[in-house]
């Protein structure tokens, strides 16, 4: 679906991401882990064409990413970034409908279909009654879920999520990952998720890409990647590794 080949991204002379390659397959969730400054957000911004790549290249559906227009990319790749507050009174439904921009005409009004899709997205994110509320009057966690609803409303096949659970409580952290999991399973979407929560990555990701200093340090299944040696090398922490008794997935406990 999305192929990344030897991409390097530089800010001025500084190489922030170096020689990164990986594939994102249909229905797959890839978690990107790494310490602060490892290049995770830069990677996400490069994958939807926001940041220019200085070396290497990416292909989407078998064609070079550069051959797609902005609108075509937005139809295929949706981003869930950290939400920035707006100073204008925008309702939750208006915000989610903005995710339909690339699907409709550049001007004019949304169709009944668009509204139905936006309302379904809100319902999926546990926000059914929020449509008429104002974005700057709901909590940070609720806003974060609205941002996910907007991404779902795009009907894009690839979701790029940059720390989507940062403002969420425990229950909503798990439900957001579960929702992304269901989208990937039922609709054949794929997702790349940046997260600092190693256990959520272990539970929900099919593969983990571990970044260190702008390079891929390790890549593979959570069981293979989440080990004491890798995590000590990348995060410089001591950990205890065992198995979640219910899900049988790897479980990481940080030792202080």
């Amino acid at each position, binding site marked *: 679906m999305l192929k990344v080949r030897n991409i390097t991204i530089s800010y001025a002379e500084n190489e922030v991401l170096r020689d990164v390659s990986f594939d994102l397959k249909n229905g797959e969730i890839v978690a990107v882990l790494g310490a602060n400054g490892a290049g995770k957000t830069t990677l996400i911004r490069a994958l939807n064409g926001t940041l220019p790549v200085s070396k290497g290249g990416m292909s989407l559906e078998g064609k070079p990413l550069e051959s797609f227009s*902005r609108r075509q990319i937005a139809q295929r790749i*949706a981003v869930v970034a950290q939400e*920035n507050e707006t100073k204008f*009174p925008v309702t939750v439904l*208006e915000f989610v409908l*903005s995710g339909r921009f690339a699907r409709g005409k*550049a001007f004019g009004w949304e169709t009944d279909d668009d509204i139905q899709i936006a309302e379904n997205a809100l319902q999926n994110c546990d926000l059914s009654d929020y449509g008429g509320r104002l974005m700057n009057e709901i909590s940070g966690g609720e806003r974060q879920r609205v941002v996910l609803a907007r991404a779902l409303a*795009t009907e894009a096949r690839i979701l790029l999520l940059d720390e989507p659970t940062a403002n969420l409580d425990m229950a909503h952290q798990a439900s957001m990952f579960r929702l992304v999991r269901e989208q990937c399973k039922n609709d054949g979407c794929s997702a790349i998720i940046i997260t600092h929560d190693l256990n959520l990555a272990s539970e929900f990701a099919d593969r983990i890409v571990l970044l260190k200093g702008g390079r891929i340090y390790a890549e593979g299944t959570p069981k293979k990647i989440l080990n004491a040696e890798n995590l000590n090398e990348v995060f410089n922490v001591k950990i205890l590794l065992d198995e979640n008794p219910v899900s049988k997935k790897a479980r990481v406990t940080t030792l202080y």
Partner: protein
Amino acid sequence: MLRKTLDRRIKIAVFLLAALAAVVLLALAVGSERLSFFDLSEQHRAILFDIRLPRVLLGACVGASLSVAGAALQALLRNPLAEPYLLGVSNGAALGTMLAFVFFESYGFARPMFAFAGAGIATFAVYQMAKSRAGMNVERLVLSGVIVTTFLSSIIVLLTSLLDAAKLRSFTFWLLGDLSQATIDGFYFTLAAAVAGTIILSFQAKALNLMMIGERDAFDFGVEVGRVRIIVFAAASVLVGTTVAASGSVGYVGLIVPHLVRLAIGSDNRLVVPFSAVSGAIFVVLADTVARTAIAPRELPVGAITALIGAPLFIYLLKRS
């Protein structure tokens, strides 16, 4: 829910158009000479058609242009305080107009052309100064506007020293925003710009709804951010440029009107832009009627009236942000 909201918006639109018609009729009737439309003497006919009508119609176009430019700039810059007058755009246009007047007086078309160029350059300068790697915050934008405005004002003051006493008085009035020099030709030109600008910006309104949330968001969701930015800056410069060339710098209109419109109908720019045009027309025609009648037979510049309302609102909005 949406249908109900739409019905309400249609009602507001009908109300605004009726209010505009009523305000225009009122403005034509009152003044230092009160006119009755049913019994017009030759002299009253001249006052109505040669003096008041061009002035009222120009006022409506000026109000519409400034409000639409303000609404679009606010959405583009993600800042409810962005306003042509406060950003220095009006002063850029004023300087352009003065340069045309001082150096190319015999070429009639030079005034709006220079005004447009001045507005465009000032907009670009403020934008470049205000943006930083961390984005563009309220303080940076307002401060950049103040710097550009004061810099341009000092050049305008220098230029006024080249004018004789009679011209100087009319220029001082004009600088504060003055509709008393209205002609029917000036009205046609401003009308053309107002209509074109409003249509162009209405077509960008859907993209502006995303830009208003964040430039990066807009880009992610399919907006050609660079193209929209250029179109909005150019259209706003044309609107402000033609307005200033015709009537000087009428301040705060682009701040007050879109703010009130958003309070009434929400932030969807597809409605805010056209509704601001009609509301702006009502506002400036009313303000100019007050300016003509408050101390009749003497007159105030309309910009003084709009500033009296706008400055306190600006302080309120700044406090709230």
